[in-house]
């Protein structure tokens, strides 16, 4: 499903965010990306989404070399990839409902689909009561859950989640992890960057550990450290 071949990402000022990364993620896998702050987790996720271009190397997503994709095809690639951003990226002038519905409208889903899907997913993340609120009227954790709802509402093939529990208390985190697990069981490939040791240790899924841009561990049923 996802394949990195010798992928490096060097930012200006010679910051090597990713160094010669190689990995192969199959359809339906659940992968944790771990590593200290600044080790390149978000960079790797942004590369999969074509938010950034790799400096060298090739990335294949769903069998396509995304570096060679025509620019007008990029939107169609992204429709298959749901993404929970580390900084949420909610639209401050849209309500919770509209933020989630937006992801469906943008890809041209008919209105009746929007009307049934959105409330269902909001129920799932526990925000039914807040559907009329604007993002800045939500707590940090609530915003994070809206972001998860939006990423998953159009049932993507791949779900990328960048620290989806960073601002959640342990109990809510467990709830979100159950949700991601359920999503994964429906066949969606999940890649999740996280710092939360207890989650990684409990779930026992594949763990890829980064350190200063290099993959230093790729373990099938791994723990945080």
């Amino acid at each position, binding site marked *: 499903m996802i394949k990195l071949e010798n992928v490096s990402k060097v930012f200006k000022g010679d910051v090597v965010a990713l160094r010669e990364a190689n990995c192969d993620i199959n359809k339906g896998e659940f992968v944790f990306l771990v590593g200290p702050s600044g080790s390149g987790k978000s960079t790797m996720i942004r590369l999969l989404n074509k938010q950034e271009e790799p400096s060298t190397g090739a990335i294949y997503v769903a069998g396509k070399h995304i570096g060679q994709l025509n620019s007008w095809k990029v*939107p169609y*690639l*992204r429709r298959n990839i749901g993404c929970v951003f580390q900084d949420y*990226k909610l*639209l401050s002038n849209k309500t919770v409902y509209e933020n989630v519905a937006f*992801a469906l*409208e943008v890809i*041209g889903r008919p209105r009746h689909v929007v009307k049934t899907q959105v409330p269902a997913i909001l129920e799932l993340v526990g925000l039914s009561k807040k559907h009329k609120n604007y993002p800045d009227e939500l707590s940090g954790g609530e915003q994070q859950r809206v972001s998860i709802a939006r990423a998953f509402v159009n049932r993507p093939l791949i779900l990328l989640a960048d620290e989806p529990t960073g601002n959640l208390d342990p109990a809510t985190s467990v709830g979100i992890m159950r949700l991601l697990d359920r999503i994964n069981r429906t066949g969606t490939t999940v890649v999740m960057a996280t710092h939360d040791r207890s989650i990684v240790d409990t779930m026992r899924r594949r763990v890829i550990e980064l350190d200063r841009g290099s993959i230093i561990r790729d373990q099938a049923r791994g723990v945080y450290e």
Partner: protein
Amino acid sequence: MAINGNYVLRETTANLTRNITLTVASVLTVFVSLAILGSTVLVRQGAQNATRQFEGGVEFIVYVDADITPSELAAVKASLEDNPGVLRAPYVDAEATYKEFRRLFKGQETMLENVRKGDLPTSFRVEPKDKSVESVQELVAYYQKRPNVYYVSAATEVIREMKAITTFFNNGLSVFAVFLLVASALLILNTIRTAMFARRREIEVMKLVGATNWFIRIPFMLEGLIQGLIGGVLAVGFVFLAKGWLDDLLNRSKGLNLLQNFSIESSDVTLACLVVVGVAITLSVVSSALATRRFLDV
């Protein structure tokens, strides 16, 4: 990808009302610049109507008798063509003369009914080599006394001055119009860029959830087009107002040499309106297209 009409409508309205001061400022500037442009066209047309007979280098007109014979006409023509002081002297035949007569007396039905084509004296439009007042006067006096010449009409001092004044106002107005058109283009460009800038996070997110460029762009382009059109429609209204004022002024100044030939016809108003609307549309489409090219590369 199907673009949802409802979505486009909603977004465009939101854009237009989000930053209402900027929208109003843009529309106003577009309006004023197009109004000035329209006025320029009106003044130019009016002046052209007034001085059409004396266009180019034509300095005087030799009217020949209506009942002139072809050979007599040939003699007059030869005397003009052989004169070393005359550069060009094209002949305006009965047909063309009658056409111009109809134009000048449009609306005055009795006049039109009673005059037939043959009744009008045909003429030569004379462009002398030397256009100084003295040499023109000499030529005029000479042809005045030639046989078969009915009347010689010279471009008077007044017409020359009128040309100078209208040129002056035309230039002044054109300068304003150009500056204002640039300002308008910049403003429409800018309103849209501001709208896009204000929504750059939204645009980024749209792109990240898989929206195509056209899906994002269309509401913004429509916004620009609507601004341009509102400004244009207001300017068209102004052109009609200006036509009214000018007519009024012309009525009040009957007997004043300077303006006696100055007239604005409805075809001129139509021309002015077409120019205004054409510029409005071009302006807004081009500005919008330019403006929406940015912010789209995420």
